[in-house]
């Protein structure tokens, strides 16, 4: 009896907090008309916004993958002064408001900022600042997935490879990388999701110019504020579809990670 009460309390909570809002996407698109949502999705500025989002992710994800793996190796395998600080800085974007990130970049590259006057290319309200913002907010994910795995596998195999004459590079490609690959992939999936969904940091540095610096998430707000509900829900549905794919990939990867 009590078991069932607890089960339905938990499932009821999830249904109200999680499923009820999500199901609204479909309900509203039905109400606004599928055709209207589709035409908003295929509008030139919307297609461009999705392109910008993909470009940002295509730059930020590989960068953060390399950085995350390097960082995780440094944190787990090496001792150096300032290691605690590095650890804290890697986690910081998880706890920090994206708006703070955006504002920091805005001030750094703005007209009166430290780097603003000395750089000749347009950083703010253009792709470079948006890339920096996206990289910043998605820094932690790969490192955080890889660190525990590296700790767990230990370094016996790496030392064995060393004594057999393998170079550091060979050891990394043949021993370390294969044993952390699922953690890396899991981190990459999370990083991608974060890059696609970023709003706050990009909102400040991009200027949100339609057809130029607008990302998919900014486009949702743009449509909403211009009372084009069908468009806002259409893009939301597309982003929600991506999120579901991400969830599916994560679920598929989890058991494999445990078995490896």
């Amino acid at each position, binding site marked *: 009896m009590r078991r069932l009460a607890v089960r339905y309390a938990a499932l009821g909570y999830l249904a109200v907090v999680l499923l009820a*809002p999500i199901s609204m996407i479909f309900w509203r698109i039905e109400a606004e008309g599928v055709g209207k949502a589709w035409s908003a999705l295929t509008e030139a500025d919307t297609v461009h916004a999705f392109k910008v989002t993909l470009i940002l992710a295509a730059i930020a994800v590989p960068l953060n993958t390399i950085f995350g793996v390097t960082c995780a190796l440094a944190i787990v395998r090496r001792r150096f002064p300032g290691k605690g600080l590095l650890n804290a800085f890697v986690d910081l974007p998880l706890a*920090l408001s994206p708006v703070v990130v955006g504002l920091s970049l*805005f001030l750094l590259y703005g007209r009166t900022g430290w780097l603003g006057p000395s750089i000749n290319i347009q950083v703010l309200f253009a792709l470079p600042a948006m890339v920096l913002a996206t990289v910043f907010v998605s820094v932690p994910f790969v490192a955080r997935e890889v660190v525990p795995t590296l700790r767990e596998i230990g370094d016996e195999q790496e030392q064995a490879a060393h004594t057999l004459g393998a170079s550091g590079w060979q050891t990394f490609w043949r021993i370390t990388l294969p044993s952390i690959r699922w953690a890396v992939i899991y981190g990459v999936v999370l990083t991608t999701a974060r890059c*696609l969904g970023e709003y706050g940091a990009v909102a400040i540095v991009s200027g949100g110019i339609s057809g130029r610096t607008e990302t998919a998430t900014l486009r949702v707000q743009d449509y909403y504020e211009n009372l084009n509900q069908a468009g806002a829900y259409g893009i939301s549905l597309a982003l929600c579809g991506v999120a579901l794919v991400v969830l599916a990939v994560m679920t598929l990867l989890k058991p494999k990670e445990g078995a490896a």
Partner: protein
Amino acid sequence: MIVALPIAALVSSSRSDGWSGFWSSVSSPEAVAALKLTLVVAALVALTNAVSGTLVAWVLVRDEFPGKSVVNALVDLPFALPTIVAGLVTLALYGPDSPVGIHLAFTRAAIYLVLLFVTLPFVVRTVQPVLLELDRTMEEAARSLGARETAVFFRIVLPNVLPGILSGVAMAFARAVGEIGAIVILSGNLPFRTEVASVYVLEQSQSGNATGAAAVAVLLLAISFAVLLLIGAMRRVATRHERA
């Protein structure tokens, strides 16, 4: 370079008018109202998560029912979904065209509800692994000695999962304090009523008051650092217990 340099620029420009300038920006009535609202709502959200997150984690670990793996996967949805979409759908559910007849658009209650959505996974995901590894012989021993179910939960299970709950709650709190995407559409951003600190920073920076925005942003930064330090300290305490 990517993380530290911008933050240094932020801190320095928040103090460009000296300490008194910093203080007058932070203590302007609108900023104070926004910060107060942010902290109160985030604390409420974190507390709700402490209970509901533990409950969901418990059911996912100890209960068996058809479709459990789907439910387990769906818990991560708020991490995968752009938060602006979360804001939009919450507005659809509780807004002017609400199908359930509840109108909460542009209220503080709506901010609370959408933050519950966004922070849902934190406590669940920190408590779940602890519950999975928990040795159940302790609970059986307590039961065989005549302890009732509530006593078993509060005296055996809860003390063991408490560090997990606390670090999940701390992360949920930090996230709730910093959240913007989910709130910016939903809250209407009425100064003194539904304007939270992150939206205040956005509005001030867009209307040219960079120093005022930076001052409040530095406070948010300090809160994030404090939360991270707290989690680090709790982790150290927890591992010390394990070794002892």
